């Protein structure tokens, strides 16, 4: 998924979920050492996978992204909840996401217009 497609997709997806424009976007670029496994706690966030590498497993309750599995008929780019990211290659790999932070705090200030 290209970044442009991801942005376009997210705009529509957030509208669909009922959040409108009330969200922040952040680029997350994780550096995973050989055999490293990390856990992302994203209960109130949404993670969209962009430029996924080979030999990486990304799994959450939404589904799995792993090019080597054959027991699923679709791979998921969108993840939420507890997301496990594992690099099972023997070399360093990079995994990039777009993180969507939903503005759910009623007391938070919005960024003033310059």
């Amino acid at each position, binding site marked *: 998924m290209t970044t442009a497609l991801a942005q376009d997709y997210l705009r529509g997806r957030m509208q669909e979920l009922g959040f409108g424009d009330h969200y922040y976007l952040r680029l997350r670029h994780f550096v995973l050492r050989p055999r490293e496994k990390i856990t992302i706690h994203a209960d109130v*966030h949404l993670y969209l996978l962009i430029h996924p590498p080979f030999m990486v497993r990304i799994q959450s309750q939404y589904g799995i992204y792993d090019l080597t599995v054959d027991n699923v008929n679709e791979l998921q780019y969108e993840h939420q909840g507890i997301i496990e990211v594992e690099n099972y290659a023997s070399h360093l790999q990079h995994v990039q996401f777009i993180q969507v*932070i939903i*503005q*759910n*705090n009623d*007391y*938070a*200030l*919005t960024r003033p217009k310059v």
Partner: protein
Amino acid sequence: MIGDIIIQTLLITRAGQQQYFEFNIPRDVVSITGIITSVQLIDAASVAGTGQVGFLQLQTTGKANGCYNSIVKLEPATALKADLGLKVYQAGFIHSNALLTNGLAQRGRSKPETINLPACNNVYGNYKDLLGKLLSKNVQYRIAITLWTKMIKL
């Protein structure tokens, strides 16, 4: 108005390691009022020097200047043992063990540092190791960052 704490722990294993993290702030938080950072050394026989362990930066969403920067310092555990002048049983614990003794020694400060960060959806954090860099070797330790918040009961 009630309060709550939010804790984030980081494991540092390599010299000069830089770790990014985030706090998810609950939706009923109206302000962030205090912070405490604590260090638990895991693999460090003796640490001398300035006591500086790392550099911590926090940034809140939604406001350009909602930020906090600080040098995380090691509390002088040996000095505190003498300063307190307490034995374990004097502090109310009858069955002592090494963990408890160390726990007592490291609890020199119990009041959080006062800060005033606005309500936000997330706090982005960045921690950079100074201790391992200074000693030119990998020092393994755990950092706990605790935020005190004020919230409205929904």
